[in-house]
């Protein structure tokens, strides 16, 4: 495929992620930090995020599965998850985490379980989208092109 086309496809795809609200400006910050001295920065951070999140989600699931739910533990996991997702700019995940924390405060198990489900869904969604994004980027790089920087003001 032609480089320009690939680049445009990458650009559109990235923009769509922002439009959908999956990612926010923080993700752009990360992209800005990626330069010659630190070429794989975004990839590193995102894979860290994936690993961390898998672990967190497992812990969360098992914690919510208990007979007597330890809300403090659950709260700390959700806080962690909120922290990591906001650090990479996963906006939707962050919002669900905020909602989740409210329900934890209310000790509403039903709602918490729903939130957990939602968080998982959002996470897997973001994960697959980001993986697609990286694949597109790799294609562009392999074809010898460079990844275009997205303007912050374009949306």
């Amino acid at each position, binding site marked *: 495929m032609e480089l320009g086309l690939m680049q445009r496809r990458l650009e559109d795809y990235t923009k769509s992620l922002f439009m959908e609200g999956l990612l926010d400006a923080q993700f752009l*910050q990360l992209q*800005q930090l990626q330069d010659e001295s630190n070429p794989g920065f975004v990839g590193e951070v995102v894979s860290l995020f994936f690993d961390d999140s898998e672990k967190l989600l497992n812990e969360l699931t098992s914690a919510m599965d208990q007979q007597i739910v330890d809300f403090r533990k659950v709260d700390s996991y959700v806080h962690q998850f909120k*922290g990591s997702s906001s650090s*990479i700019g996963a906006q939707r995940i962050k919002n669900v985490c905020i909602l989740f924390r409210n329900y934890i405060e209310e000790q509403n198990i039903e709602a918490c379980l729903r939130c957990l489900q939602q968080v998982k869904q959002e996470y897997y969604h973001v994960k697959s989208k980001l993986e697609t994004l990286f694949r597109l980027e790799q294609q562009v790089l392999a074809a010898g092109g460079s990844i275009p920087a997205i303007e912050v003001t374009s949306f």
Partner: protein
Amino acid sequence: MMESCNCFEPHWSADELLMKYQYISDFFIALAYFSIPLELIYFVKKSSVFPYRWVLVQFGAFIVLCGATHLINLWTFSMHTRTVEVVMTIAKVLTAVVSCATALMLVHIIPDLLSVKTRELFLKNKAAELDREMGLIRTQEETGRHVRMLTHEIRSTLDRHTILKTTLVELGRTLALEECALWMPTRTGLELQLSYTLHQQNPVGYTVPIHLPVINQVFGINRAVKISPNSPVARIRPVAGKYIPGEVVAVRVPLLHLSNFQINDWPELSTKRYALMVLMLPSDSARQWHVHELELVEVVADQVAVALSHAAILEESMRARDLLMEQNVALDLARREAETAICARNDFLAVMNHEMRTPMHAIIALSSLLQETELTPEQRLMVETIMKSSNLLATLINDVLDLSRLEDGSLQLDDGTFNLHALFREVVNLIKPVASVKKLLLALNLAPDLPEYAVGDEKRLMQVILNIIGNAVKFSKDGSISVTAFVAKAEYLRDVKAPEFFPVPSDTHFYMRVQVKDSGSGISPQDLPKLFTTFAQNQAKSASRNSGGSGLGLAICKRFVNLMDGHIWVESKGLGKGCIATFIVKLGIPEQLKETKFLVMPKIPSSHVCSHFSGLKVLVMDENSVSRAVTKGLLLHLGCDVATVCSSSECLQAVSQEHRVVFMDVYVPGIDGYEMAVQIHKKFAKPHERPLIVALTGHADKVTKENCTGAGMDGVILKPVSLEKMRMALSELLERGLIFEAI
């Protein structure tokens, strides 16, 4: 043979009849003698216990032999052979032997038999006695059961009337009484009133005086006392017909009060009131009061006393509870009214505030516009004064609303670095025109050791000084006003009302003492305490001239001074003798005075921003790997030399003098960020060795910020951090040593 047989010659002729009778008698004797042993044997065989069988055999033998003798005698009436004689002799001999033996044995046997008889009698008596005692015990047990039932009945209710009624009913039933009555003392305590009876439906309300001898006798002893059926307390029923009234017993029932229950004091000693219980046995029954019945009555009387006291306590506590509920309701109402009042006042203040602000703003706006135009120097001076006064007035208006906030303590000072000397000069310049109009001399005296710059709330300090000097001017008709300001060394205040206030200067703070002396109308001693109360104006003064003022001035000043950890007071030698107003406030010593800056509050970010912090050694502590990586990336991009740790213990170990800044996430389980900061402060005693500490947090509300500053942190940054934000934060940090606002 007939001659040597020695037999009796039977005299047949005349004594034939006699012989015949003898013959018959002998026959019957023999018969009897033979049948008696048979009977004996028969009956002994029947009875199982007969200890003397051998005696019986002997007796039997004796009787049989006697019988045999008599039987053989039958043959001796006529001619008999020698054989018969021999048999007769043998029989007689045997009989003799046996009878002697028996006679001898009887000597031993008969006493024994007699004693058996006595023992039998004894045992029978004993058995009878035991029976009687059993009967008694059973009766007592019955009584005990009755008592238990009774007390159970009595104690199962907490209602006075039920208790007393039940007592009478149960007692009546248990003891089969004819009548049972309870006399209670009246309110006055001088009479006993018939309150409850068993059979009469409506007690007539008889009363008897309480000091009758019989009553005193009963009250004086704690046992049941038999009294005469004719005494007034016992004569409840109309005596009719030939009654032989049954015996009457009376017992006292102590009426216990709550106050009777003292720890080492038994109620008998302290109770004064008794009720009287009178019990009457049925008339014409010849029944008597038994001891156990009296005991029962005494026990019941005690139980009744206890039950009554419980009922009384319950009544008390119910009453107390009702009272408390009423009070609660009243308090609730009062609280709601107070809240409404406060709301109303706040609304009023807000509205007034708004109404006052609008013209104020017009003045300020227009004066500033005027400043822009062409003005002569005098005009410019005047316009500047107008501006300054209107600014002050605007602040005052703010403070009128703030007063409510001051009162509930939510107002906070706006600290900043400012020029102290300049402030005083400005105040004096503001007042000078007014003073000169009144021909008052205004003198300002600043001590040489008073620092030029200080940290504090400039506007409010100016307001305080202005207010006090303004008052001095207002209430002086002539003379002079002197203002002195100097650094207060550790000294006692001369105001006796606050002997504990002991200003101690430190490395970072000093206490400034300002004294305003005027030679005006003074204040009388009784008005001195009221000076600082809100809205309280001195009557004499307000009458003298248009003093204006809301009466808020000194109250606000006092509150501001208190907020500045200070103290304010006024002294006056009396009316017409002027007064001295003094206040002490705590001001901060500004750090690292740089020559060029600090005239203005450094809220404006400095124009010079380092864009490349090459080699700056920083330490990042964040438990979350993702945000740690992001922060690290940010700092790396800015050129810093970044080290990362993921726990507080690692951080404490890793932090060193080389690190200029430590970024820490404050939400860390285990030692939290605040504690960490304190630890870091401890680790590096000298301030310039210590790295700057910046908190990274997901929410930066006031509380978090306060906690951070309280723990000794130099700044707070809100996550997620953008590149620009980090850049600016770092440059501000390095320039000023702290971040003011980095949100």
